[in-house]
């Protein structure tokens, strides 16, 4: 919690007429005016459009209508979510001026719930990175310490909520891109079960891993926002035709009787302050009535390697459409192949090019079995190992990030060091399971630490129960 009101209380005050949506928006826009130059959370602030949406909410309230659970709540969108007629850039030069002719399903659902979209947030180009330093439009700074990164790739969305620019935001998580920046910015971040939230209109990085999820000030807001965006969408073939469970009843459930797993063979590499915070989390949960059970997940260690084959492989194909033929930027050249090379050479940044090359190589004739094929086997092993663990426990607890927010430039020269930021978050993407980061205490330099709660597919209710318990404990200041 960082002193900003919850989205629930904002929506409630607007629905009851205590406040106008416009005044809530203006308050957020004022904070943007004050600090956005310093933070650079946004690629685009939609002040005028947000004002007219807020006014419309106020008119509906005046007519006695209920605009929905997010009535008048200012929301920021990661700039890889398509917004009709509004530039959607993926923080890439190749899409700098592209305006989608449609809204992503999540954007439609937010609008139907009464949300007011305040802007499009910065990200590592095409969501590839862990610091938002890979944006073609300059990095986002951590609002808690502007000499440090906000994490990534959804750094802009995490920073927007942490700085009070928006009450809620959406990010996308392919290997940790919601949970790691949430941890570094001291907010709640959720990667839902794969298939729980429609990917239609999310510009793909790695389709089998990508999932959209919320950044919020607290766990209850995350539950609210997730309930709004989750649910089957026939427009996404990987969307699961299943009713998304209600989360609100879980929030006050407590953890009594829950079995919470500690992974004894978790890869090392987390800083001591992070390790201490996770240990404290286990103590808190045990004290609250949970049973802590040791489990092993041998494949956990291979997650990072498998991920850096599968994700780039899919990306190499997903990003092939940026060829300058139909949309996006084009660099003219003498023939088609030269145009492709000039366009893609100028349009993509170095990290994107690196991953396209990695992925192209991993899928190439003669290398497929050794790289991509083997990574798929690891993915199956990972699923088996987690399934075995979940026979004994309800949720698992790990760090969300190996460290607190790090200074700019400290990992940019070493891609592998940057990739290690995702060690603890990647397995949930490979299995398609839900996981979330909840702020729990502070570490070095007083910076926030995120504890990650992992659950099996559609295990969000239990996951939220545990996260809420950790949040209550942190609010009592027991471990700060």
């Amino acid at each position, binding site marked *: 919690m960082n002193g900003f009101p919850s989205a629930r209380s904002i929506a409630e005050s607007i629905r009851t007429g205590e406040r106008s949506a416009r005044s809530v928006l203006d308050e957020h826009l004022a904070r943007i005016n004050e600090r956005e130059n310093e933070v650079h959370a946004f690629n685009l602030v939609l002040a005028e459009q947000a004002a007219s949406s807020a006014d419309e909410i106020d008119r509906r309230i005046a007519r006695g209508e209920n605009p929905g659970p997010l009535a008048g709540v200012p929301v920021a969108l990661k700039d890889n979510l398509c917004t009709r007629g509004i530039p959607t850039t993926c923080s890439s030069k190749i899409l700098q001026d592209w305006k989608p002719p*449609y809204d992503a399903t999540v954007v439609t659902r937010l609008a139907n719930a009464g949300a007011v979209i305040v802007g499009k947030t910065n990200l590592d180009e095409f969501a590839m990175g862990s610091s938002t330093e890979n944006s073609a439009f300059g990095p986002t700074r951590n609002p808690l310490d502007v000499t440090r990164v906000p994490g990534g790739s959804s750094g802009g969305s995490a920073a927007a909520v942490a700085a009070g620019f928006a009450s809620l935001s959406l990010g996308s998580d392919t290997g940790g891109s919601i949970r790691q920046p949430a941890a570094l910015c001291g907010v709640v971040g959720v990667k839902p079960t794969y298939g729980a939230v429609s990917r239609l209109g999310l510009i793909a990085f*790695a389709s089998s891993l990508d999932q959209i999820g919320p950044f919020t000030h607290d766990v209850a807001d995350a539950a609210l926002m997730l309930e709004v965006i989750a649910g089957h969408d026939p427009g996404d*073939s990987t969307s699961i035709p299943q009713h998304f469970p209600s989360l609100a009843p879980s929030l006050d459930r407590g953890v009594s009787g829950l079995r919470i797993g500690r992974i004894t063979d978790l890869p090392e590499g987390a800083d001591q302050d992070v390790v201490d915070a996770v240990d404290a989390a286990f103590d808190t949960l045990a004290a609250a009535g949970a049973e802590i059970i040791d489990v092993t997940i041998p494949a956990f260690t291979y997650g990072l390697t498998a991920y850096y084959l599968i994700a780039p492989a*899919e990306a190499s194909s997903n990003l092939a459409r940026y060829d300058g033929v139909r949309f996006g930027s084009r660099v003219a050249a003498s023939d088609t192949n030269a145009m492709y090379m000039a366009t893609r050479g100028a349009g993509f940044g170095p990290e994107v090019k690196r991953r396209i090359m990695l992925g192209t190589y991993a899928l190439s004739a003669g290398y497929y079995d050794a790289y991509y094929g083997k990574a798929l086997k690891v993915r199956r092993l990972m699923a088996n190992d987690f399934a075995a663990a979940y026979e004994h426990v309800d949720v698992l607890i790990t760090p969300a990030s190996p460290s607190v927010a790090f200074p700019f430039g400290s990992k940019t020269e070493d891609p592998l060091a940057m990739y290690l930021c995702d060690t603890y978050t990647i397995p949930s993407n490979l299995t398609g399971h839900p996981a979330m980061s909840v702020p729990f205490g502070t570490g070095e330099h007083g910076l926030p630490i995120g504890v990650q709660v992992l659950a099996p597919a559609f295990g969000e209710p239990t996951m939220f129960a545990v996260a809420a318990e950790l949040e209550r404990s942190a609010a009592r200041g027991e471990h700060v």
Partner: protein
Amino acid sequence: MSDAAWTHDGYEMVVGLEVHVELATKTKLFSASANRFGDEPNTNIDPVTLGLPGALPVLNRQAVELAMRIGVALDCTVQPCTFARKNYFYPDMPKAYQISQYDQPLNVDGRLELSDGIVIGVERAHLEEDTGKSTHIGGTGRIHGSEGSLIDFNRAGVPLVEIVSRPDIRSPEQAKAYVNELRGILVAIGASDARMEEGSMRVDANVSVRRPDAEFGTRCEIKNVNSVRSLGRAIDYEARRQVALIEGGESVRQETRHWDENDGRTHTLRSKEDADDYRYFPDPDLVRLDPGEEWISSVRAAMPMLPAARRRRLAEVTGFDVASEAVATVVERGQDEYILEVAALGAAADRALTHVKEAFADAGAAPKVSAADLASLIAMEVSGELTATQTKTVLADLVAAGGGDARAIAATHGFEALETSELDRFVDEAIAADPDAWAKFCAGEPKAMGALVGYVMKASKGQADGKAVTALLQSRRS
């Protein structure tokens, strides 16, 4: 006939065909845009068709159903399957990958029986999406040397089934028969209109040559074959080219070759070394497709009778050879049901087949001449009331008028059966007029009969029945 052997300098050809057919669906394979040929360019498009960022494919159920029909019609195993991405850059390929099926196709291990009983194996028949259509301006009309290119994305995303034969074809005639038979099946089951000239059916041929019973030779893939006739010419040319290479001490290079209709040759398009590495991998935007026994059974149950079975049925009823051209022709035109209807009215089925084949070429599957009208005409012909020539005349009138009473039409021509006494008189006259021919005929020269019959026909102004005259002459001689 499809079994005419092709050999050249002691080599035989080994041919496998890859046939792409556009499915006759309302909408595209993965989006709701119309699947329609001939519309204004770039009108049947949408975010999925154009591969816009954030767009996602949703599989068209009707396309799966039609693809399953093809699988069932070709005796394939219809199985759970997956979709894969075939990655390559080309301006008319919107996503820079084609969604296709790779290691787990929908239909596998089928067969197609040609009209002469030869069976060609079908390796697989899988679903995939079509590309857009490029038009190259200037130069030769091909991309190299053109001034610019226009792309129409209406075709992009249209559902295709690629039907891959086993290398069981041994002659140009067999290849043509395979394509004709396949087309007949596709039309019969409503899967495609299968028009090569409109591009809704496209045929590529893999051609190699070998000494009989030797290992397969190196193959070349022949593209740009735009008609069944060209297919025969192209593979004949290509096989001869390969034989000449081998006989000249060279070897065949594996490559893709372009058939040029104008010079009647194939030309190198790209060699194996230049071939793309398609980097196939499972499409993560789509889930596994398991049609399930129930769906497969319902497709099987709804399957109409296929051309081969219809040919067998017609041959049985008419007494014609199942492999005869007449049977194949009317079944291809879809007129076999009509013939059976005529026969059911008591008319001679063989006569019905002959008349329909000869006179109903443009009549389609449901001729305007009613089965009853044709049956009446055939009854008159068989009873001898009308000669073969007269029958043809009346039939032509029936077709022109779209039906009518055969007896009334015959009367307008003054066609009446000759009395036996009249016929006797004409025969007497013929023998008297040409005793020389009669002598030769009596001496056993069959040719001599022609002059005698000709006389009778002329004298009777064509009203005599040739068969009756022959019979009479023969009885007189004995």
